[in-house]
């Protein structure tokens, strides 16, 4: 469609590079440290999954990348390099220009992602305001994209309003809208959580196929380990505002290094082959994020916590070629077998 745009950024650096991102929310009880030292890379053409439980900061990270944070949020450190430019130090207008152009997003709830009082046609044409071409051409592109995501009879359905479509169809429309502009990076925040399992599979396959066709990268936020395993190339595991482990999907699922990742995988009933009456759990609760944290964030719930865990925040140790985890057990000198 627009030759050269996809490879506009062709140096060796990844498409998106987040380094040491800190983010606080102001609250009456004090500052909530929602993201602490988050680092993440997304290379061109790669699907990166972010997994974590509620409150782990995975959606906050997605919203920070898009610049869609609430007013009480404040980035206190770090950088977000997208195509070599730091989003946090960019003029607001320049940053806005990236949205719906180089950066697109799909939200969890497909109804709130669409404007209920405008037709799909109008919304899909508006979404192309960065693109050249006449209204007619934009409409044709929108119809073609709707056909591609599996909306039957798109020529006539494009005139409909969001409420005339089912949940699965709406999410397909959201995907069509997000990818219509051929973004370099698509951020998907739990796009299948509100859908049934059969639709979930359809949407995951659709995303996978479109990602290959368009050649974009996807940052896929989910708490569902099954969908992450199926869709993603790389995985980052978040816990209480930190990325505690990251690596290629196979390594994370086959050889998890951090005790939290292991516990999380063990909890998934889908991984338990034998029928069992009692399911594994992670005892305790996610720590409060108000005030400063000392030591390892997971130590209260960790079965392997030892002396250094209480005082020192673990550095990131590499496990294998591309995998890394923040755990004192992995320190070469700790002498404790991991």
């Amino acid at each position, binding site marked *: 469609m627009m030759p050269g745009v996809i490879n506009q950024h062709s140096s060796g650096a990844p498409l998106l590079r987040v380094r040491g991102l800190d983010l606080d929310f102001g609250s009456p009880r004090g500052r909530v440290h929602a993201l602490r030292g988050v680092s993440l890379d997304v290379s061109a053409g790669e699907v990166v999954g972010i997994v974590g439980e509620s409150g782990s900061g995975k959606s906050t990270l997605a919203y920070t990348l898009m610049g869609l944070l609430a007013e009480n949020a404040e980035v206190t450190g770090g950088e977000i390099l997208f195509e070599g430019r730091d989003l946090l130090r960019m003029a607001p207008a320049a940053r806005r220009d990236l949205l719906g152009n180089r950066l697109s997003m799909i939200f969890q709830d497909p109804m709130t992602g669409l404007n209920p009082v405008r037709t799909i046609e109008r919304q899909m044409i508006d979404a192309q305001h960065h693109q050249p071409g006449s209204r007619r051409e934009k409409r044709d592109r929108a119809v073609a994209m709707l056909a591609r995501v599996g909306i039957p009879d798109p020529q006539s359905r494009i005139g409909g309003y969001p409420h005339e479509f089912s949940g699965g169809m709406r999410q397909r429309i959201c995907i069509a809208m997000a990818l219509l502009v051929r973004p370099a990076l698509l951020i998907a925040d739990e796009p299948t959580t509100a859908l049934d399992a059969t639709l979930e599979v359809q949407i995951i396959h659709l995303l996978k196929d479109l990602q290959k066709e368009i050649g974009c990268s996807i940052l896929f936020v989910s708490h569902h380990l099954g969908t992450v395993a199926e869709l993603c190339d790389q995985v980052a595991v978040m816990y209480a505002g930190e990325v505690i482990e990251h690596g290629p999907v196979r390594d994370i699922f086959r*050889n998890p290094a951090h005790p939290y990742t*292991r516990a999380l995988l063990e909890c998934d009933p889908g991984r338990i082959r034998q029928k069992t009456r009692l399911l594994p759990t992670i005892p305790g609760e996610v720590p409060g994020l108000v005030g400063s944290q000392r030591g390892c964030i997971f130590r209260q719930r960790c079965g392997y916590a030892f002396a250094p865990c209480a005082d020192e925040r673990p550095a990131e140790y590499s496990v294998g070629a591309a995998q890394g985890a923040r755990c004192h057990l992995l320190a070469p000198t700790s002498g404790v077998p991991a």
Partner: protein
Amino acid sequence: MSPLLSVRDLRVRFRTMGPLKALATGVRQPFIDAVCGVSFELRKGETLGLVGESGSGKSTVARAIMGLRPPTSGSIAFEGQEITGLSPAERKLYLRRMAMMFQDPIGSLSPRLTVRSLLMEPFHIHGMKDRDAATEADRLLGLVGLPADFGRRYPHQLSGGQARRVGVARALALDPNLIVADEPTAGLDVSVQGEVLNLLARLQDQLGIAILIITHNLNVVRHITDRMAIMYLGRFVEVGPTEHIFRQPRHPYTEALLSANPEPDPDAVIDRIEIKGEVPSLLKRPSGCEFHTRCRYAREMCAKVFPEPSQSGSDPAHSFKCHFPLEGRWQRAERSLVSPTV
């Protein structure tokens, strides 16, 4: 022994438009049958799972059992007594012995009451003056593993898992024989989901409660239910022992649902059966076998003849409605999961 709960040919019908509009627009049947001839039994201490996509009528079955939605026809017998068509006062006697857990853990708790008042509410409603409601509230908190000082909290101060526990405690307040749990783990994280399900399993073992669990999460069904029923457009398409169905589903819809379950393993080579399209509208039920529009095995006959229930081999407990049931062992690619070594 007679079953604890016996549902026969349950039918729940919703009106889609007023009679005048129906007359004006020439619609002869301004109704949809959300539940269409469902029959099952539940014995003491047993767990039955109802599985299906959104709109398959699972929650409507639960609401009909609890008397929150009067059935259009059919019978619901609890402890041998017919409970459809009872007056609210008569029904109240039965509602002591059956309890419901609703889908939204926080939304189903009144935001203006403390946890303690919420737990005392069932005793007040049923006029149980012989019991000291305050002590009972503390006992219930202990039963579901919450500290006693949680009694002073309000629902908004609870996490999803804690609110679920309060929901379980409320359901247990009057020592029921039956708990109807509508999506008890929807919206919970996997680590918390395990806690809530383990709690239900433990209480079932201790108290011998029967549980009807409604969920779309097949992994949950597999581990905690004895029997399962798969619903499609308000009907059971397959029902039987959970183990059997997972080993050998006979209905193509069950097969598709089982294979749609994403595996938390990047190397899982899944022979995925992607089910086409979406659930048809209840306003336009397909002819013949209602699944034929999405079925990959559908033949000419399927569009014309409604399949009658048939039994799977020698097992009368496993029945299904399909003209061309699946044969042979269904297998999801087996592989050795490397168990995380510590």
